[in-house]
């Protein structure tokens, strides 16, 4: 993505966000739609369009779990690890998912680029703990640790969404 594209997207928003720092998030979100993650060029484009430094833009992007600074898998699986889900075994679910995809305990992207596994904070589905969200689809739950294999198979089988806002 280049600065002109980002600028074109931001043009109608500029009145709503008079402070340029406030434009970073919409700009980053938009830049990520291209390939599902942000490379240095994207960060520089956003920096140019918002008039902030690239370093600052990167710093903001790194703060948010759903802005990716490394290539992601075709689907992204976010496992809630906040209290309710944790009490219902989400840590075991998470460990199991990582294990099945051959990933280290901190998660990451599977070797074949199929899925990215990451943790998430409370998804607001505490009543369905432990819960999981795939990309930005409706959160599902409960997904019990021993259902992990089945769950992954379903995720891998489903078609990748055409709109990649994650």
């Amino acid at each position, binding site marked *: 993505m280049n600065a002109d594209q980002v600028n074109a997207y931001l043009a109608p928003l500029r009145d709503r966000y008079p402070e340029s720092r406030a434009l970073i998030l919409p700009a980053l979100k938009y830049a990520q739609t291209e390939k599902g993650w942000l490379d240095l060029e994207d960060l520089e484009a956003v920096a140019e369009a918002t008039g902030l430094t690239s*370093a600052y833009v990167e*710093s903001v992007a790194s703060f948010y779990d759903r802005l990716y600074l490394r290539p992601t898998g075709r689907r992204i699986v976010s496992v809630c690890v906040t209290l309710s889900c944790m009490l219902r075994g989400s840590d075991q679910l998470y460990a199991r998912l990582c294990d099945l995809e051959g990933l280290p305990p901190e998660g990451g992207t599977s070797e074949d680029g199929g899925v990215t596994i990451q943790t998430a904070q409370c998804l607001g589905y505490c009543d369905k703990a432990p819960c999981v969200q795939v990309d930005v689809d409706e959160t599902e739950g409960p997904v019990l640790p021993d259902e992990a294999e089945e769950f992954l198979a379903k995720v891998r089988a489903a078609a990748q969404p055409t709109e990649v806002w994650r």
Partner: protein
Amino acid sequence: MTDYAPVDLERGEQVEFDLNGRRVHAPPGTMLVDAAHANGVEIPIFCYEPRIGPPLGACRMCLVEVEGMRGLQTACSTPVSQDMVVHTKSDLAVDGQDGVLELILANHPLDCPVCDKGGECPLQDRTFRFGPGDSRFLEHKRHFPKPLDLSSLIALDRERCISCFRCVRFSQEVAEDGLLTFQERGGDSEITTFTGGAYEGRFTGNIVDICPVGALTSIPYRFVARPWDVTNTESVCGTCPVGCNVELTTREGRVQRVSGREDPNWIHEEGWLCDKCRYAFPAAWSPDRLTTPLIRDGGTTREVSIEEAVAAASVLLARENARPGIVVGPEATVEEGFLAQKIAAASGDAPIQQLGIPAATLAPIRALPPAELADLDGAPLIVEVGGDPANQQAIVELRIRKALRHGARLVMVGSRPHALTGLGEWHETAPGQIAETVGRLADDIKGTEGVIFVWDEQSLAQEPDAVPVLAELMAEVENAKQLELGAHINGAGLRALGLPADGVLEAAEAGDIGTLVCLLADPLSAPGASRWDAALGKTGPLVVIATHASELTDAANVVIPASMATEHEGTLVSMNGRAQRLRPGQEPPDGAAPGWQILVAIAHRLHTDVARSPSTILRTAVTERSALTGLSYKEMGRLGMRLRRPSPASANGAHAPREPAGEGLRLVTTRRIFGDGFAARSDALEHVRQPADVVISPAEASRLGLEDGDRARLVSEHGECVLPVRVSEAHQDGVAFAAVGVPGAGVERLLPADDGPVRVQLSRA
């Protein structure tokens, strides 16, 4: 570092407020932390650093209770107002501060015994004075692999970082290099650079000074000393003409660290240093440091004691038909310059000169009111004429950046693009055209009051026709001030002594010099090197008093090793006329002595009566040189004093527009920030030093058949040298750009002795 901003409780509007039950006052708008500090109450802070800019409120350490306001307030970002009632020690405030400190310490490792910051650490000190003294956290602290090299100069220990953002804000908002950033969040937060590369720049060392914990440490100082076994000496940098105040940290007789020393009101300094100033000191131990006095006599070289060398030099000066000449270098102190003058006078009024720029033409500008660096802060308009402050007077660059953040307008006239040219109105001017460009801008500039003119000594000396134009313009602007970008470290001090910038060379060429004494001067690596080289063939014995080996010392009959700026007492006058004291942080190596001691010893052997200590030498100089009137070590104190009288007008200097002879491109020179003098000899700066090159525009490159990376031979009417070529879009046609001062590069050989304009022919080497 005080950490708090200066507050004027005496002058101007004041508001009254209650501070811990006491009625006090401060100017409206002052942040509570500063107002409290000025009134003797310490509110603990970590992220607040008023020199960086507006407060951020990142650490929450400064919580205080303000009656009528909900919850606790961050005192660093709450301005005082009339009748505010503030409690910094109430139960509520203390509870808040305790909680924050406990949280900050939750992840901070307890490795103080092996941390360089221990003993001078704001976190350690404030944990001692504030906070609960205990922690309820039982969890493991976060761990990162131990230190990472942020650059060849700075190590980062991420475990110790308390996420105060000071370093990031310095990088983004003060140096404006845009490199440092925070990544991730919460317990995973870490400092890194945008690209993941090294944090390199001109001002990086400052982040070590401002880090309130031991997360950022200086690699040359790592594990070298603890604060309780060092002594700190207040001195002056002595590596460039700005003359920043520094503190030398000495352990076991060696200077181990140079750090910034702000003046309380930030008039001269804010305590920031450039990396050249901070990391040049290891030049004291570079392999080419002179440590053994030598006498060369008819092909044999003898290592001798310093007394013998001094005796031999004196004999060469006093013998019949000695016809001495003395050349004084830009690093010589006022005291040394004065002693050299005394020796010259005692040797039958021998010719004496400094290696500087002939000054006569610049007098009309110098006569106008001089600016302090702080004048830049609030200037509505800064007009910069010539120069390259980023490489030659780096702190000026930083201060101009600050002025721009405060809303100043910046107009620049010059031929060499530099670090600031993208930040203001850049009027690229062909060499020789300054008068015309300034004339064209005059009407626009005239309308503004309080303009600061920042002008480059060398550029204007090269274009004498621009001087009256600029001087007239300055005179027309109300409350204008001028800030000289001087070319030489103690150029202003030597000028105040009345030392001309010519005379010895001409006499030497005429065969009128017998014994030639070079005092901290290396004419073979100064402008006019080729002429000096030839002239040395016509002089007699050569006596060299120098700190480092060079071609000149290799050819000398007597070599007397001298001390560096970190090793002696003396006075340096900064480019804008502020006289300041050098104080030694270490002894010179065995076999070397302070320059003034060497000169006193020579003078005594010549039966000349001179004072025997730097302070008394200065006292005599003051009575004999009117430009120094009022100067004394006592008056200079910690922060120096401004020279009150003008320097004597020197007779030399060209007055007409000077069109250089010959064919080819005009040569425009600058320096490299880490490339000359002591910086070039410091191993600490090895990885950030840039090699010499010649920069030309793409059009010139294709005309000359040269490409990036080629080696080009540069030939002027004075001499020649060979340099790698760099092709740059940003540079104008018709000009070649090169740096002087880089050892071995030889650009000086191309230049006339007065550092005047010159043309060079380029061809593939």
